[in-house]
């Protein structure tokens, strides 16, 4: 494969494009509402109406508005049908010829769609994730070609630094700096790992990216591998995402057949192979050192850093580890330029961020907005507020490592620093909306139970501390705790945060601390009065 071949694949694909394209969502959310049956019926109806030469029915990835699925979009009319069933699907075809469609339509120009800015999700819901030609037609693999032929690895790293991209896994470490460190590390063998172990409950952005546009992740990984000098990559993906695994496997196979992965990529001396490693349900494996242990086939327990993976990672070799969304940003950065990317977002947080909007909110689904967008815009304008006229109480970001942002802080811009100031984190992008009916102490206990179960048991503060904190939260909820228990809880929060080995333990108290900070009244209302001992009597005597 050389550039001319790539261009001819693109031209052929574009020339074959039909006048009308019906895009039918085949991502996991809509699939669970039988969207594959919808697609089948659409195809049948097109054949019956004899429209094969004018109408294409294309299976695509996520079209973002997951709560209204299965979704079918009609191009170029810019219509979006929602809750389509196998029964009413054929009427969409009759509507093309002037008939009336039985299916419900939604406003494709609603704020939910128009306020979005797509970089990571640009191809999601547009290209067919199971056909590499479809990705190439959307300028796919052009960035990789340009990088391999016109840039040195050093240039690639420099451009990444200039773009200002920060890790989308949650911590927000500057990507360019990480790439530079791995590139500088000595070692003949280096690895690139993609962290697709999206363990945060309430987050499904990475799943959607892998299901909707797997090639962008592969291309991003290949560019990263060239920059740091790696020839082997791994994608560590959760076993809970079977569709994402299947589409990745297919994508890798197609890219290899075309000579875009494997040995001699684009007929250059650059070799890069990607293998998939399937996780087995351990939240702690989202932590980088634990993830590498798991890729090595061991128990996923973290280890102290340094040495950082950039110096000594997988199998003791320098390893670059980035999140799915980080890699998905990469091709666009090289295709459109680092300056373009740096022009989006805020001073310290560049580009866009994808959020999985869920919980007590009208529109649930995926949104991608520029960094710095106020939370209110996301939740009220795009999300449509709480359903059934309810009132939003708090927004939870960052999953079990994050915090709850109360409604009075809804004007906070979404970027790494502002969320940190409120005691939450950007996290990987899960955003759960809670309404007035949600008990915040119960939410804190829910997350603590999660961390307690998922603690790997290696370090004591996390292993024992999460159990004790959970017990106290449970006691408070059962109205058996006193003010003294609450004080102990706060002390434990501080201890576990400061003394745990890895991110899981260090952030486990976050949901509790942030709800204590903003909703302390709810805790105090559940407390029992202290039973005072009469003077002279010992405490044991009163028991």
């Amino acid at each position, binding site marked *: 494969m050389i550039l001319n071949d790539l261009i001819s694949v693109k031209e052929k694909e574009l020339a074959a494009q039909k006048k009308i394209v019906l895009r039918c969502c085949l991502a*996991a*959310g809509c*699939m*669970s*509402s039988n969207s594959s049956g919808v697609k089948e019926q659409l195809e049948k109806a097109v054949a019956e109406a004899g429209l094969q030469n004018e109408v294409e029915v294309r299976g695509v990835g996520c079209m973002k508005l*997951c*709560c209204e*699925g299965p979704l079918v979009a009609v191009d170029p009319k810019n219509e979006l049908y929602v809750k389509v069933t196998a029964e009413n699907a054929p009427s969409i075809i009759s509507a093309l010829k002037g008939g009336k469609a039985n299916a419900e339509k939604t406003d494709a120009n609603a704020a939910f769609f128009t306020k979005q800015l797509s970089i990571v999700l640009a191809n999601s819901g547009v290209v067919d994730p199971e056909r590499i030609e479809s990705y190439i037609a959307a300028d796919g693999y052009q960035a990789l070609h340009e990088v391999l032929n016109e840039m040195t690895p050093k240039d690639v790293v420099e451009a990444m630094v200039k773009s200002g991209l920060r890790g989308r896994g949650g911590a927000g470490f500057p990507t360019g700096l990480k790439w530079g460190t791995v590139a500088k590390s000595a070692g003949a063998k280096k690895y690139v790992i993609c962290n697709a172990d*999206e*363990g*945060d*409950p*309430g*987050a*499904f952005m990475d*799943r959607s990216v892998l299901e909707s546009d797997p090639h962008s992740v592969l291309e991003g990984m290949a560019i990263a591998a060239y920059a740091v000098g790696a020839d082997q990559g791994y994608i560590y993906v*959760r*076993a*809970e*995402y079977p569709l994402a695994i299947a589409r990745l496997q297919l994508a890798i196979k197609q890219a290899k057949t075309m000579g875009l992965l494997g040995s001699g990529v684009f007929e250059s001396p650059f070799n890069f192979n990607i293998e998939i*490693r*399937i*996780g*087995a*349900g*351990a*939240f702690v494996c989202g932590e980088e050192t634990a993830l590498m242990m*798991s*890729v*090595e*086939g*061991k*128990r*996923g327990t973290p280890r102290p850093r340094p040495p950082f993976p950039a110096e000594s990672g997988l*199998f003791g070799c320098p390893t670059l580890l980035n999140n799915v969304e980080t890699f998905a940003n990469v091709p666009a950065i090289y295709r459109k330029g680092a300056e373009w990317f740096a022009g989006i977002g805020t001073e310290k947080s560049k580009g866009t961020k994808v959020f*999985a909007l*869920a*919980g*007590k909110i009208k529109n*649930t*689904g*995926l949104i991608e907005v520029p960094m710095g967008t106020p939370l209110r815009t996301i939740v009220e304008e795009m999300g449509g507020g709480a359903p059934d006229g309810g009132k939003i109480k708090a927004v*939870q970001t960052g*999953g079990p490592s994050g915090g709850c942002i109360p409604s009075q802080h809804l004007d906070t811009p979404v970027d790494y620093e502002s969320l940190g100031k409120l005691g939450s984190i950007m996290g990987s992008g*899960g955003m*759960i909306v*809670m309404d007035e009916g*949600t008990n915040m102490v119960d*939410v804190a206990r*829910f*997350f603590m139970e*999660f961390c307690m179960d*998922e603690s*790997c048991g290696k370090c004591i503060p996390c292993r024992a501390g999460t159990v004790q904190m959970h017990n106290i939260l449970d006691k408070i909820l059962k109205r058996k705790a006193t003010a003294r228990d609450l004080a102990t809880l706060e002390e434990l929060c501080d201890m576990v945060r400061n003394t745990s080995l890895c991110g899981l333990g260090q952030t486990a108290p976050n949901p509790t601390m942030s709800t204590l900070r903003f909703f302390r009244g709810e805790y105090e209302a559940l407390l029992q009065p202290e039973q005072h001992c009469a003077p002279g009597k010992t405490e044991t005597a009163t028991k």
Partner: protein
Amino acid sequence: MSEIPAPTKPQPATPPAGHASGDKRFKILEVHMKKHQFRHDALIEVLHKAQELFGYLEDDLLLFISHKLKLPPSRVYGVATFYHFFTLKPKGEHTCVVCMGTACYVKGADKVVEAVQNQLKIKPGETTADNKVSLLTARCIGACGIAPAVVYDGTVTPRQTPESTVEQINKWVKA
């Protein structure tokens, strides 16, 4: 300094292909291990395949894997018990997995679990006495847009209620 003679490694006779029981699934599993060149870092992949073939990982199966991959049984057992995805107990004929991710939780997944619990008189992670239904909970299946989600025998089903879940369970129990 006295030299310690290198211990002579007892050379085991070539192990017979497959398993003494003659169960063909062991052979399929061995082919899978061979595909990974019996590499130690493929242990998790091998356990996935084993669970896919046998449904759960019993001691005998874990010993077979440890023998073939030349890993201590403690390491194989350690890995198999560390990860939630692997189960050492047989599952029932049908499985009902209730997602307990945050989005499903705030939309009432706990009530769904409670309803099933009351109906079947079993706790999450258990199987009914007649081996018909297993009740499981998942951390998050990433179907937050259609919460609360329940997975019936591998099929993700959106927007479940305690009533709809019990209805599905009853269909299985009566069948």
